[in-house]
């Protein structure tokens, strides 16, 4: 299913070992990490933080494929006006210290995660009125919303919303407590976390006795950890490494599968010339050589995109990609009078491949008569609002998050969103719809506008690759494939 021609050694296996892992043993996994890690689920932002949080803490809902399934919450009831919802919580859940899980924990967690004091405040904040959230009894929580939210379970599953214990403030190694299948034994930021199985987990016991999470900032080093036998699994491996292949018969390169690909895009700024003109936007989409980008930037590990984010998410419109047509693009540019217009393409190596794709995109835009200039910047300044507002295009990628999350994010940023009345109306309708058919219609309309005159040039869907010992089994994807769920993983 992969485009291009992967090298003999580099054909990735979808999904990996499907066997049920045996009970016991220690799983050693490497992820990107660093000194900024934290056991506080709202204070750390590195990959290993997300992986660790997933097994130490539980969420109210989790994503399985495109569906949100109950976790700490068993059900959610949405009010008619979609301006509040009621959560029913699971019985017999215990914290790592043995105390019972209550509705008060959820209320506290919602407030905790949305507070601006958090280094990474939850993205639920614009949706939920957490100050007014209340526990009506030990297992029921009512949460008013700030805008109509028709399907809160999707949001609660897709946006990391780990539940911490009521009153928890101190998340140092001995104190960090969750309800998840593993508890923290020892932790040192940027080095490693030792997690041991929590036998009292509500979802049954996890297979591995112990998970050792190793933090490395350099992906190549991470792969070397596996090839040299010092680890069993390395997540989010660069395509070049995959292409090189791994030595030895007991290692394999895996992909998280087509449904878990990440959409790579250039988001055009519709608040500025020349991309304020839909014709020029369309020209850019006609100009981009999707297959070349997939073959070069992704080394074939992926497929051309259709300019819509959210492949694999619910209500995604699987339209065919726009075929490349340089002549038509030139004509559109001429019509719009944008010949020779200067366009700055802002990028940083936020994700491997951003800069490369931007450089190629610039070459392709030059072919249709735009004066494309690549603006490569450092990570620390990449997302400066003022600078983003000045750039004509920003390189960006989003995984298969629910469409509400994806378009919500883009819309929050004037220079990333699409200022189009039809689009905005349809989006609001989709977000607030409590009925699934209405929702499906609304999303279809949102994506139709995007496909016609949208501003996201999603040129490719990239495989999420990992390197693993063949015996590593049970690795699941819940929200993003880059941060797999290890709660059911172990050695077969």
């Amino acid at each position: 299913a992969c485009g291009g021609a992967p090298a003999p050694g580099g054909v990735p296996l979808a999904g990996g070992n499907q066997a049920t892992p045996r009970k016991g043993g220690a799983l050693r996994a490497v992820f990107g990490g660093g000194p900024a890690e934290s056991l506080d689920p709202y204070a750390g932002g590195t990959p290993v933080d997300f992986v660790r949080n997933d097994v130490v803490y539980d969420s109210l809902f989790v994503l399985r494929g495109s569906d949100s399934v109950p976790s700490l919450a068993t059900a959610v009831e949405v009010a008619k006006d979609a301006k509040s919802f009621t959560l029913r919580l699971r019985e017999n859940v215990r914290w790592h210290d043995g105390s019972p899980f209550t509705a008060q924990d959820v209320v506290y967690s919602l407030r905790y995660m949305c507070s601006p004091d958090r280094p990474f405040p939850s993205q639920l904040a614009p949706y939920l009125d957490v100050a007014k959230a209340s526990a009506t009894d030990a297992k029921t929580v009512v949460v008013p919303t700030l805008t109509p939210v028709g399907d809160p379970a999707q949001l609660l599953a897709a946006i990391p919303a780990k539940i911490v214990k009521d009153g928890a403030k101190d998340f140092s190694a001995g104190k960090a407590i969750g309800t998840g299948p593993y508890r923290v034994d020892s932790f040192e930021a940027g080095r490693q976390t030792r997690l041991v199985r929590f036998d009292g987990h509500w979802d049954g016991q996890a297979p591995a006795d112990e998970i050792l999470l190793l933090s490395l900032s350099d992906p190549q080093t991470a792969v070397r950890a596996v090839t040299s036998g010092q680890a069993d699994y390395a997540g989010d491996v660069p395509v070049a490494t995959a292409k090189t292949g791994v030595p030895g018969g007991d290692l394999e390169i895996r992909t998280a599968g087509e449904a878990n690909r990440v959409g790579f895009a250039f988001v055009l700024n519709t608040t500025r010339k020349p991309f304020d003109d839909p014709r020029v936007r369309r020209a850019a989409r006609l100009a981009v050589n999707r297959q070349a980008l997939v073959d070069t930037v992704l080394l074939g590990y992926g497929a051309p995109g259709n300019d819509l984010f959210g492949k694999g998410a619910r209500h995604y419109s699987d339209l065919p990609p726009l075929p490349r047509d340089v002549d038509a693009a030139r004509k559109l540019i001429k019509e719009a009078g944008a010949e020779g217009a200067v366009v700055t393409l802002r990028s940083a190596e936020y994700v491997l491949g951003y800069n490369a794709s931007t450089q190629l995109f610039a070459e392709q835009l030059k072919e249709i008569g735009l004066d494309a200039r690549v603006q490569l910047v450092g990570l620390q300044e990449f997302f400066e609002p003022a600078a983003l507002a000045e750039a004509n295009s920003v390189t960006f990628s989003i995984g298969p998050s629910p469409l509400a999350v994806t378009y919500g994010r883009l819309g929050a940023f004037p220079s990333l969103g699409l200022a189009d009345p039809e689009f905005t109306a349809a989006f609001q309708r989709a977000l607030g719809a409590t009925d699934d058919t209405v929702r499906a219609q609304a999303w279809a309309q949102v994506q139709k506008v995007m496909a016609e005159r949208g501003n996201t040039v999603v040129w490719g869907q990239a495989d999420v690759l990992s390197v693993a010992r063949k015996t590593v089994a049970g690795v699941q994807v819940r929200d993003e494939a880059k941060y797999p769920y290890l709660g059911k993983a172990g050695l077969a």
Partner: protein
Amino acid sequence: MNPGLALVLRRTALSGGLLVLLTVVVYVGVDLLPGDPVTARLGPNTSPARIAEIRDHLGLDRPVLTRYTEWAWGLLHGDLGHAANHRPVTEVLSDRIGNSLLLAVLAVLLLAPLSVFFGVLAAWHRGRATDRIVSSAALTLVSLPEFVVAGALVVVFATGLGWLPALSFVPAGVSPLAQPAVLVLPVLSLLLVGLAYAVRVIRACAVATLRSPQVEFLTLNGTPPLTIALRAVVPSVLPVAVQVWLISASGFVGGAVLVEQVFGYPGVGELLVTSVRSGDLPVVQALVVVLGGGMLLALVLADLAAVLLTPRLRTAVTG
């Protein structure tokens, strides 16, 4: 008072003043860097309005001098503030600084004798094959980026021969000293890169000494080459060599990012770069103070060493 001691005290006091200057410059400078902690962290996932709200909440919009004063006040009380992830900065720094110092000290301990050995050896055989080999090898080694050197070492000693671990994993809370094997390759990588510079400079100094009349005198009186090297050449290169070692050591502590990354060794270099990238200003500022303070101290020591090792300067101070 002993004039030597007086010199040290005066220089140390002066360095204290310089450190204050450094903190002002760096605090303000870092503050002016593009990007701010909140945007760098939250990125595009958060609307500009919300970002502004959080910035305001954290007091990032207050005048920089106000914040500097607060920060400096905390500094005086040993409080370096909190990192972006709310850990006390002192805690974030402490283990990494130790690790980096360990690496740097080991590398310099090896660098010092080796650089003098190869530098003097090349100078002794100046213009001949040994010199060419040493000099060219040195230059080639520096020309190859550190990660290539480090990578080659891994391929040979870890992947190939299997003598040493490819990665310097150390369990949480354990000092790398407990597993000395993990230190070998990182130290070696730093050493090879640092050696080149030291060898070349020391060679140049030694060549000047070897052309001097005192060496002619010693040679003509049949002094064994080793004695000449040890008594006349080595002492003459030491005042300069000390500066070179110091320069290398400072590079080993704060600039060993790539070596640290290749071996997964948790050191200060990586901390500095990631903190800069993620806009974690309290950590950056604290690091600069600690590294800068350490460097200023080391510079005082190097100045002192230069005086002590140059007889004319020493006798001018001590009478």
